[in-house]
């Protein structure tokens, strides 16, 4: 179940949103002020934040800035009062995913929450993949890297051997090692991993 954290000073808004989200099978947790939320966030599982921009004490913008400072990346959907467009725009600039003007339509909000959470999941997967790719790329020797470079550039073994001043046989040997280390079954697998690892020599 996905987590949604509601930060709003209005109890009615918090409560109604919570009920709505529960009806869509979200896990919700309510915070009546920004300070409590910021204290708790570190110990909370990942989730989406619904943030009221107009609260007494600390504004929603301050909360976003604080999250940025702590490098906590969660999708944030802001809810704003009527006509408070300037603040909303500011929030988006600071990294909020979207904003809704009160009163909002529940269906749209829920749709948006779902999309944001899906995007977050995708992002997480991509992150995992990238870090793994980087991890195995780091196992390659400099020579193997050079051969990989040649492969990424689409050179034939013969050309690679010529460029490196080694025999075709040796190139073939390196190539096998690279495939092994990257656990790749084909050349295209090798390329996928290199791209995911954001390999520095990839020039598209």
């Amino acid at each position, binding site marked *: 179940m996905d987590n949604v954290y509601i930060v709003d000073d*209005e109890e*009615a*808004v918090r*409560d*109604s*949103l919570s*009920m*709505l989200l*529960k*009806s*869509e099978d979200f896990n919700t947790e309510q915070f009546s002020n920004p300070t409590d939320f910021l204290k708790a966030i570190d110990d909370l599982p990942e989730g989406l934040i619904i943030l009221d921009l*107009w609260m007494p004490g600390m504004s929603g913008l301050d909360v976003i800035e604080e999250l940025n400072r702590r490098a906590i990346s969660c999708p944030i959907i802001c*809810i704003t*009062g*009527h*006509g*408070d*467009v*300037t603040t909303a725009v500011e929030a988006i600039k600071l990294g909020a995913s979207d904003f809704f*003007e*009160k*009163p*909002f*339509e*529940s*269906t749209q909000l829920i749709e948006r929450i779902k999309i944001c959470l899906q995007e977050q999941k995708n992002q997480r997967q991509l992150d995992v993949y990238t870090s793994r790719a980087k991890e195995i790329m780091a196992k390659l020797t400099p020579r193997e890297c050079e051969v990989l470079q040649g492969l990424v550039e689409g050179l034939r073994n013969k050309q690679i051997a010529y460029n490196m001043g080694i025999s075709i046989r040796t190139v073939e040997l390196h190539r096998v090692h690279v495939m092994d280390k990257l656990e790749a079954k084909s050349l295209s697998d090798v390329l996928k991993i290199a791209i995911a690892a954001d390999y520095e020599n990839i020039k598209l």
Partner: protein
Amino acid sequence: MSSRISLLATGEVLLKYLNSNLSAGVFLEHNEQPENLYCHLEEDFGTPDIVVLGLNVQDPIRTAEHILVLKRDIKIIILCKDNQQNTLQKAVQFSPFLNSDVISFEFTSNALFKTKLQELADTAEKQRSYKSAIAVVEKERTSIEPTRPLVANYLDNLLDLIPIGILNLDSHGRILNLNRSAQDLLGLSERDLVNAELHSLFSGKADSKEIQALTKTALSGEEKNKSIVVCLHSLEVKSYLEISVSLLTFSTSEPVLTTILQEVTDRVLEEEKRKSAEKALQASEQQLRLVIDAIPELIAYVDANLAYQFNNKAFEKWFGFSRNDIKGKKMWQVIGEKPYSVIKPYVRQVMSGQNITFEEILSYPYRGDVYIRSSYIPNFSEDGAVTGFFLLTTDITQSKSEEESKLKHMLEAAHASRIITIGEMSTQLAHEISQPLASIEAYSSACIRLIEKERTNISELHSAFENISNQAIRAQEIMHELRNFVKKDTSRKKLEINTLIQSTLKFLQIELRDYELNIELDLAESLPQVRADRILIEQVIINLIKNALEAMQETDKSKRHLTLQTKLCHDSGVEVLVCDTGPGLQEYEIEKIFEPFYTTKPEGMGMGLAIIRSIIDSHGGELQVHSNDGNGTTFKFTLPGISND
């Protein structure tokens, strides 16, 4: 016996000539001063037959008179220069020369005079021989009254000594004879004066005429003891003489006027001084009076009997009485019983010696209620008793009503600004209303979903609907608050836009003074009336002016100009323009300026122009802005005029 001739002040030369040329039977004697001669005459010793009064005798007529008084039958020859002949001849025709042998002789040469004198001496000789026959009788007669010449002499001396000028005039006002004081007073010798017209001695035309008139009156004998004062200028000294003329006698063919001169210079000067002092006093009093009359406040003095003693013009005008009507009247008689009952306690206070100032509403007949401010100041006598009081009263009705209307105006403006604030508060209100709306929506939506999924129970739904209901009530309350806020209905009335602008400016005058700037008015005449909410349109004008002032804050003081203009618009409407000379607006600013929340002011909400636009819109007008060429901004709004039907 020989003839005896006494020469008086004739000079040595003539004496010698006569001595050697007259016949031997003539005895000549010579005196420089008449006193010697007088002595001889008085003592009746060596009495001459003929006396010659030489050219050096200054007052020959008086001398002749004197001689005749002493000795009646002496022949007297008065020597004179060419032009005096007639004058002297005339003078000696009158009393006291009547029946006397006095002649004047125009002296031209020694020889001619000698001939004449010889002739006379011969005649005298003859007469004497005739007279000697009756001399004895005569001698007896004169010895009986020995005192007479002395008395005459005494009177004569007395006349000379008294400080009153006495002179006799003929019917033409010419001087016949005069005493010494008269000569002194007139500052001229007898020779100069005799036969001169008295009035001609006075240079002042009016004086001269007066003297003529006076002599004429005296001649007619109508008025007696009349005197006039005339001014005599001689040797730069001004003296004043009192002249009285009376008809003395008709004893001769011609009447004689006796004139008395008296110097009254001191008296006249004293009088003049007194008069000028009096005049100065009068002038200063008059000035004071003018000042007091010019004061628009009512000023009066009330005595201890509560009667008016003094009042100024404003006081008279106020009550419509004349000064004389007011003076002496009791207070209640002038101001009326009813108003007096109001001020009575103050009168009592001032009469006890206190200075007081008060404001009251007095109700005067024909005048209605008048708001006055009065000060009463007691007046004390030397022993400290209150002898009355001064009162100063000002009509402050107008300033009071201005004050009141200003206050009213301010209250109205406050109300208007409350309405305006609603606009500024709309964000806040929308935010507050959006909260319950958002909750209601979310609750409802949740309920629907749960019911659709059949995953709910009655108690969950119950509490959700309870919440929905509560939130709906909250929204209603917010609406209710808003309605309370705009309690007073905005009523639209017919109004003149120019009048409205002028009253608005009056309202802003204090603020404008701080800006040291004059507003130029260019108001079109005979504009149609508009139907509008005065307060709101006033607010629009105030806001536009304030905007303009703020826009010009950075502008050089000398270049700050604010122009308010009204024009006819599309034949039936009016157009109001507010032009400033501030920095003007950029193209992109003009597009955004009417949007809510757009502001260039740090503390501004950015709602001002949006509200102005909505007010103008609601009146069926239009609000526009454009940059002036080169400098400043012009805001322009239109209002539809009231159609004639």
